[in-house]
Each structure stands twice: as structure tokens, then as C-alpha cells.
């Protein structure tokens, strides 16, 4: 079925509310208004009080969802922008992530936090960040970043059936994107990257909003005779290091591309895992990411700091240049 990314999210939520009686959906404006981006459209009408609005209280929202989860329910809490996760950070890290481990496996926290993130033209520094690296550093959490309508559906369903807490970071920029969604597919497990374009010269590992630009870059590079393998990481936690390392070891060149700021981004973890696993067979390593700034609102500026098809093409070309500093 062809769906937009946002409709795919909606379909997955509807599926869970139908199939899993303990599922509830909560968040700001999600119920009666149908969601600030429409992710929950129609669900209140169909499922009544199981879909409910909350005050603008992200900490209490996550904590309340956790309390329900402790009792065997499966709450899905929408946090409107990824930037606002920071308001609820104590509940996410010090409460949710600790639950199962510290209770020695007696308690479970099967909740899903859905948010959307990233920069769009004009969005300010408080509505633009890509913060997946913060959460991927928190043992106890799973973190998914769907890049397509189908993954918006499949990965959210994987999260909805998981008994662990899962953070799904959708992409506002991709919400209107249309694509084929296999609504009847088997429910996947959390985890696993995917090679979305095979190639033998260089490996690009990327995720979320940058999968499409990287595929575009691979197309451009193909014109030069460069065969680029593109891996959609899909899950920031757990990282599928096996798939990454296999590809990097095959091509010997790794370019990691993400929208988050460069320093301390998840790209560093991908590089470190690959470097440790692949060793000197990995001849060149490059990271392409947003420069280390706060996000400026003016598109004239944000364009200058965000990665793009062009910056990816340039980085790959540079990685393939024999004089490249890091392969020397």
C-alpha cells in the first residue's frame, strides 16, 4: 500500500491499538486534535480514552507512561520535537532505562517514546537537533531512526511489541514522503541495519534523513565509475556492527554520514566499532556531519552547516584519492 511516512506511523499506531489491548497513546494534542503532525489522526475516534491528551509536561508524560508500563501496559508517548526530550531527560535515562536492569529483571518498561527531529528550513536551534547519540549512549534503551515510510511502519511496530523501552526518532522532513508500505508484513525484531545499495569501492553508513541524499550521492558517484555501498543503519541502538564491519572490510573505505553535529555524534561510534573490528583493512575513514554549531534559523546559514548530497559526494571522492591524508 502506498502511504506517506506520517500515515505509515499512523497505521502502525492503529495496528497496535487494535492488536495489543494494553497499548495506549498519550501526548500533547494527540487525541482530540489528532496530533500536531497528524500521526494520531482518527485514533481517538476509533479507540476512545486509550488515546489521550496530556498537559505540556514532558517529564510527567514520560514518567506517567513508565508507571503504566510497570503495570503491564504498553504506552506510546509522543514528544513533539526531539529537542524536547531534553526536558524529560531524567525520566528517560534515570528512570525508564534503569527499570529492568536495576530491578534484576523483575520490572519491565515496555514503553515507546515517539518523536520527530532534525532541521527543516527556518526551524530554530531549539527545534532542529538530531540527538540520537545521547540516547544511544544509554544502556537499557533502544533507538530507531526510520528513513522510509515502510520503516516508519515496520520499525515502529517492532518498538510497539518490544518489552524494552524504545525511542523512535522520526523525521519531520520525511513526513510527506510517499512510499510502498507492506502493512501485512511479519512484525520485525528491533535491530539490524540494511544494505540499501551494494557497491565495492566505498561504504557509506548513514541513517534517517540522510539515507536519501546518500543514495543520490551514490548515483552521482556511479557516473564517475565509483561503486558505493550504502548502509542504512536504521537502529542507533543496538548498532548492527556486524553489517557495518562486513561492508567496511569489503570496501576498505568507510564514510559515515549523519545530520547530528559531528563531534561526539553516533558517527564516532560507528567509526570506532568498525576500526576496532576491521583493523588496518580499513584504509580510509571519513565523517560527514553537521558542523559543530547550534542550528541557525536562516536557510542561508543552515545550508552551509548541514550535510548534503554534494558534501557526501565530495567526501567520498576525497576518501578515494590516494593522497588522502588518512590513508597515507
Amino acid at each position, binding site marked *: 500500500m502506498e502511504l506517506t511516512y506520517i500515515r505509515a506511523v499512523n497505521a502502525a499506531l492503529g495496528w497496535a491499538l487494535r492488536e495489543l489491548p494494553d497499548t495506549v497513546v498519550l501526548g*500533547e494534542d494527540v487525541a482530540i486534535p489528532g496530533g500536531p503532525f497528524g500521526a494520531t489522526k482518527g485514533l481517538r475516534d476509533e479507540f476512545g480514552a486509550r488515546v489521550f491528551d496530556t*498537559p505540556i509536561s514532558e517529564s510527567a508524560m514520560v514518567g506517567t507512561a513508565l508507571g503504566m508500563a510497570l503495570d503491564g501496559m504498553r504506552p506510546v508517548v509522543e514528544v513533539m520535537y526531539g529537542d524536547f526530550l531534553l526536558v524529560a531527560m531524567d525520566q528517560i535515562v534515570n528512570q525508564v532505562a534503569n527499570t529492568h536492569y536495576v530491578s534484576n529483571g523483575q520490572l519491565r518498561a515496555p514503553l515507546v517514546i515517539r518523536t520527530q527531529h532534525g532541521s527543516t528550513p*527556518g526551524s530554530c536551534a531549539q527545534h532542529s537537533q538530531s540527538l540520537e547519540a545521547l540516547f544511544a549512549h544509554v544502556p537499557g534503551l533502544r533507538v530507531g531512526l526510520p528513513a522510509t515510510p515502510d520503516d516508519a511502519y515496520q520499525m515502529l511496530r517492532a518498538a510497539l511489541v518490544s518489552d524494552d523501552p524504545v525511542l523512535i526518532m522520526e523525521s519531520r522532513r520525511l513526513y510527506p514522503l510517499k512510499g510502498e508500505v507492506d502493512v501485512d508484513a511479519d512484525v520485525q525484531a528491533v535491530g539490524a541495519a540494511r544494505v540499501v545499495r551494494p557497491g565495492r569501492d566505498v561504504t557509506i553508513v548513514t541513517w534517517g534523513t540522510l539515507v536519501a541524499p546518500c543514495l543520490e550521492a551514490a548515483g552521482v558517484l556511479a557516473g564517475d565509475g565509483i561503486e558505493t555501498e550504502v548502509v542504512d543503519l536504521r537502529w542507533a541502538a543496538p548498532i548492527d556492527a556486524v553489517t557495518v564491519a562486513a561492508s567496511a572490510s569489503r570496501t576498505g573505505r568507510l564514510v559515515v554520514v549523519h545530520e547530528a553535529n559531528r563531534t561526539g555524534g553516533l558517527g564516532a561510534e560507528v567509526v570506532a566499532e568498525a576500526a576496532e573490528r576491521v583493523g588496518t583493512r580499513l584504509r580510509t575513514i571519513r565523517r560527514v556531519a553537521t558542523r*559543530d554549531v*547550534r542550528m*541557525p*534559523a536562516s536557510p542561508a546559514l543552515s545550508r552551509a552547516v548541514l550535510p548534503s548530497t554534494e558534501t557526501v559526494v565530495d567526501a567520498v571522492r576525497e576518501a578515494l584519492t590516494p593522497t588522502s591524508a588518512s590513508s597515507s
Partner: protein
Amino acid sequence: MGDPQDQNWYAAMYRIRRVEETLLDLVRQREIAGSVHLCIGQEAIPVGACAAIGPDDPVIATYRGHGWALARGVPLVELLAETLGRSSTLNGGRGGSAYLSGPQYGFFGENSIVGAGVPMAVGLALSASFQGVDRVPVVSIGDGALNQGVVHESLNMAAVLNAGLLVLVENNGYAEMTPSDALTAVPAAARAPAYGIEPVEVDGNDPAAMARCVSSARAAARSDRRPILIEAHTRRLGGHYSGDVQHYRPAGELDEWRVGDPLTRAAQSIGPGDLAGIRNQVDREIETALGQARERSLPDPSTATDHVYTTG
């Protein structure tokens, strides 16, 4: 006919209104990237408040803050250039519509995290005490922000640390798409006693009432060194943001609310000739400023990484 001050109120409010409508057009024409949050219907609050505060009083607002910026004295052309993503003496396009500041005008900025500006205002109040200067910060928040933890923490903090400031809650009937009273257990002003302060309420659609209220609140905040929580009753006469189709509004509500439009009310005491004169002048000012703003250069991409730090 009428007080000449009425004409000033009207002019100041009409100016904000027209700027907001202009911005909405610019968004629809895609000349402004992204969205804007407009204060249409709420103009009397910044206009009345800024007329009553001291020359050095710092003001902090929300994403719905263009009216506050203008009322505080931020030049129109700079505000337009900033929201257009062009070079401006505000933030050079970095802040944009929802996060701009003009500290040189006493405008310490908008904030796009609900409630997050309140503790900064507490800090500005404490620094005024430390420095022994006569300065009372004013921070505007929405009704929905009362349910953010940091607002609560800040009100208590201000009360116990003797911070003199005004926390002005603009109760505009909605928090995004949810009616104000649906998810807040008590009206805004009823929260005041929880911080040991008495509730203040004011007609937020009457600039003169706003000015009187803010003037006496300011005096009390200053002399007693304490926070004052003011609930200003108003109505958001539009969407939460530029793209809001307002499907959640009950039929007829907007028409009902428009009866109390602060501009309509203020216009009543002004003769038709004066009114036309004011409008004409403001319209021309905006047109000129927009022309100038449009001529501003786009920010230089090579400066995009400047100022992450003060050094290095």
C-alpha cells in the same frame, strides 16, 4: 474626541497586527522559510506592559514574541530582516521568527521551549539586586506553560530568593490545539498562592488596564523584591502557528472572540479620520521597512560557524 493616548495605544497595536499579517503573507508566499507564531488578538499585552516598565527592564518572551520585540523598541526593519532569514542587527538570521533577541533594546529574547525563559528572568532579577540597579525583568509565557516544571521551580526560587520580577501569563484560550482550561487544574492566577504571592488578573485586551496593572506590579516587585504572577485574559484570534487550519475550533468561536478584539475596542474612541490616518502611516512604515528588509543581504555562509564560542 477621546484621549490622545488612545490613539497611541491603537497605533502601537495596529502596527503589531499589521506586522503579524505581513509575516503570515510572507510565509504563505514562501518568502519566510518555515512557520511563524502570531500574537494576533494579544497585542494589548506587550503594548500596555512595555509602556509601563522601566527603560532598562529586560523582557523575555516566547516564540509568539514579535509583539513584545516591537513594543520593547526593536526596530521594525531588523525584526523583518531577522524573520526573513536575512542580515539583521538582531541575530543575523540565526534566531528567526521563533527565537530572536535584541538585547541592545532590552529584549532578551524569545524562547521556543515552553516555559524555559522564566528562570532566566529570575536570574536577571537577582543580578539587578546584586548590582543594585533599578531593573525589573518581565517574562511572558502562555497559559499552557504553567504546567512545565521549570516554571514552577522558578516561581518558588524567585519567591525564596527575593527576586523581583513579573511573570506575565497570557491566557489566550488555547495551548496549541487544546483549550486552556482542559489540562490545567486551576486558572493561572490560582497558582500564585502556591508561591506565597497574591494573584493578579487583568483584562489583557485593554492596553491602558495592562499598563496600570504592570506599573503597580512593577513597583511592588521592586520594593518588596518578590515575583508577581499576572494572568492577562486575552484570546488568540488565529491559529497556533501559520500553518494551523484550526479544525479543533468550535464553530462560531472565532466570531464571538473577535468582538473583544483589542483593536476593535480601542478604535471605538477614535474618530474615523484619525483612524484612517494612523493606519495609513503604519501601513506605509511597514511597507518601507519591508522594502528595506528585503534588500538586506543573506547572511554570509562563511560566517555560519562564528560565535559558537567567544574564543577559539
